[in-house]
Every structure is written in structure tokens, then in C-alpha cells.
């Protein structure tokens, strides 16, 4: 209130943790899996609070981009920028980032999911 209106509106604040960057270095699907090694967690200590938190979560168990967004309470777009940086910097390894292509690959995945559901 009373402060000069930022011409970019209130979109700016959520992206402060990415220093204003809104474009991720690479596209990462919402369900892509991220994994961090113990060594990567150590390295991430110097990468800032948010990235360190993400590394710790991904060392405990593999996490999707969606989970990282939820656990860090960052909007999806913000989490995507942070995670893409960490992948580029070697702090996270990225799994399942591309949809399965081809009949056999897709059918294999469907069969595995089906058998997983039946075992629930």
C-alpha cells in the first residue's frame, strides 16, 4: 500500500527466489522424477536455502517436480526454474522426463502400471 506499483504487477514476488527468471533452462514435466546423491546434498548447501531443501527431499526419496513444488510451497513455475538449474548444475539427476514413444515401450509401461494397480 502506498508503494509504487511495479509495472509487472504482483507476479514478481513469487519469482524472487529465481532472481526474477521465469523461463526454466529446460522443460521439466510435472511428473518427472528428481534424485539427489549424498554428495549433491553437500554441494547444494552452498546453492541457497531453496535448492538445498530440494536436494534434501530428493535424497530421502525420488520426488516429482509436483512434490517439490508442494513441499517447498513454491508455485510450479518457480519450482521448475529451480529444479532445471539444479539439473544443469549436476545437483539433481532427472528421470522420466520424456514420454514413452513407440508401441512396445508404451505397452510395457501400461502393463507394469496395470500389474502395480492389481497388487495394491
Amino acid at each position, binding site marked *: 500500500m502506498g508503494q509504487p506499483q511495479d509495472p509487472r504487477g504482483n*507476479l514478481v514476488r513469487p519469482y524472487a527466489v529465481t532472481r526474477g527468471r521465469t523461463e526454466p533452462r529446460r522443460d521439466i514435466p510435472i511428473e518427472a522424477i528428481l534424485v539427489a546423491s549424498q554428495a549433491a546434498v553437500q554441494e547444494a548447501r552452498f546453492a541457497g536455502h531453496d535448492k538445498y531443501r530440494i536436494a534434501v527431499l530428493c535424497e530421502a526419496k525420488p520426488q516429482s517436480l*509436483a512434490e517439490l513444488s508442494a513441499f517447498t510451497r513454491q508455485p510450479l*513455475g518457480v519450482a521448475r526454474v529451480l529444479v532445471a538449474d539444479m539439473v544443469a548444475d549436476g545437483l539433481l539427476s532427472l528421470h522420466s522426463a520424456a514420454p514413452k514413444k513407440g508401441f512396445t515401450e508404451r505397452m510395457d509401461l501400461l502393463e507394469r502400471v*496395470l500389474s502395480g494397480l*492389481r497388487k495394491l
Partner: protein
Amino acid sequence: MDFASSERAGAQPREITSAKIVIAGGFGVGKTTLVGAVSEIEPLTTEALMTSAGQGVDDASKVPGKETTTVAMDFGRITMADDLILYLFGTPGQTRFWFMWDELIRGAVGAAVLVDTRRIADAFAPLDYFENRHLPYIVALNCFDGAPRYEPDEVREALAIPPHVPLVMCDARHRESVKAVLVQVVEHAMATLVAEQSGGYPAVVG
């Protein structure tokens, strides 16, 4: 492509695969209840930022001065194996947030459109959406206690659901019932894939 970074991160040698199934339907139809019935975690919420115009704002610089709002998506997780995780994503209830639906269905195994028989008209928009997308989907009637029960054929006719789209009854609160819905989604996805492969099935409906 990711080899160098994977090595530095000391990744597990095995690639972990994730799959997702989308749970669509109108506001308050029980999507999060359904997800929670089978998820190994309490359903989580992720939020996307958007303008009041219903436009995605991954690039905020292109929408100066627009009012923004957040659109929430609930999701759950089923770890099926060390190297296989299934995610269930509920679509945002408001169908004006189409851009978020597009992101959710990209790469999805398939979808279930959840229908509340007390508010059947709420299903029109989600059904329209899927009819124009290349994604196998089924329709699941959520049978709330005391909800008017219709014969599946009546619902199919009322909603103009094409004959090849499976329609099932379910109770979104019950694990076994939800499991059956998800099994049906995957089986339908398999049948669609096989039919596409043999060329005898319309790839895109509508």
C-alpha cells in the same frame, strides 16, 4: 544428454519411470477424495500462477500488470517399484483453467472423468475437453449416498458419451472401487494403443 550431470549427482544406475493418470471432473465432484483413497501420501497440492484471463504465466514478462491468481491441483502418489511411480493428478475444478489441463494430460497414461449424478451438467465441459484430445479416457459415476442413481445407459445418453468410452460406477471414498476405476483406465489405454497400432480405431475422437 543427462549423462554427465547424472554421474556427478551419483544417480542410481537404474532409470526411474513415472506415469500419471489424470482425474478430471467438475468442482466438488470428489476428485481429491478419489486420489486420497489410493494414494500412499495425503494428497498434496501444487499451485500454478495465472492471470485473471485464465492464461498461463510461465513467462510473466509477457503479461505486465495483469491481476494474477493461483490455480491449485491436488495429486497423490503410488510407488509401485523402486523404479516405477504412479501419480494421480486431479484437474483444477474450474474448467476455465484449460492451460493447466493441457500440461496435466501431456504424457499421461489416460484419464477418468468423475461425474456426480446430482450435477450431471458439470461433466459436459470436461467431456468436451477429452473428446478433442488424443488421450484415452473413461467416465466414472461417483455414487454418493443418496445421489439419484441412474442406469449407466441413461447417463451415457444424457452426456452423449461415445460407445467406445467405458463407463463405470464407483465410490470415490473406497480404495477397492478406485482401484477398479484406475485398472479400467489402464486397460482402456492398452486397448486404444492396440487398436491404433492395427489402424482400425479413430486416433482422435470428436
